[in-house]
């Protein structure tokens, strides 16, 4: 059975992902209150990408405790960053006819997020 196969050995990682995801989502909600709309989401996604570069590089290099990756990377940073708000906000800009702004938001987030991930990995190697 597929479900039991996927759940096997997950009694500790799943709560770790849930706990981390809650913390990340609350942080995203708080940033959204201070800086609503696409500027806040842009900041969240770029910061989250830099952080995952650092965190996973360090955790992998150190052979850290097996629950740290699900908690910090999959949970906190996965819950903090969001693809859905990015896609919906970009689509709404395009539907409103603000094509240039929508395209700039789509491509700008993508470029900044990928560069931030690389920068985070570089920082993680230096830190380590």
């Amino acid at each position, binding site marked *: 059975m597929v479900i039991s196969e996927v759940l096997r050995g997950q009694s500790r990682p799943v709560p770790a992902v849930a706990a981390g*995801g*809650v913390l*990340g989502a*609350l942080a995203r909600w708080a940033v959204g209150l201070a800086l609503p709309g696409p500027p806040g989401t842009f900041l969240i996604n770029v910061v989250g990408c830099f952080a995952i*570069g650092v965190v996973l590089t360090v955790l992998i290099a150190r052979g850290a405790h097996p629950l740290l990756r699900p908690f910090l990377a999959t949970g906190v*940073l996965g819950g903090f960053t969001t693809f*859905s708000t990015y896609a*919906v906000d*970009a689509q709404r800009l395009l539907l409103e006819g603000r094509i240039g702004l929508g395209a700039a938001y789509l491509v700008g987030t993508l470029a900044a997020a990928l560069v931030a991930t690389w920068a985070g990995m570089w920082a993680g190697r230096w830190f380590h």
Partner: protein
Amino acid sequence: MVPLMVVLGAAVGAPARYLTDRLVQSRHTSGFPWGTFAVNVVGSFVLGLVTGVAASPWVTALVGTGFCGALTTYSTFGWETVHLPRPLAVANTVASVLAGLGAAGLGLAVGAAL
């Protein structure tokens, strides 16, 4: 109540992403991050739906900010993309953005029609 709704939605959305990724990635050997792709597209559709129906603040916090926000991820998308061989990285980027946009647009349209 809004923060509580965010907590409840995220407590379901984040593990749903983790388990969906495990399930999807165990079903193929292509090296393409279909698991993250799937949660991002599904989450974009559901958030479009919630936004399109102009749901109440509680429902928006629970399903939108909490569940969809935690179900989808930009950080794992970024991490996986920079670790893919160049052609797959380009494919993942283009496919995720276009499918996410399309799913969001479909969700918005269906939501507005409801």
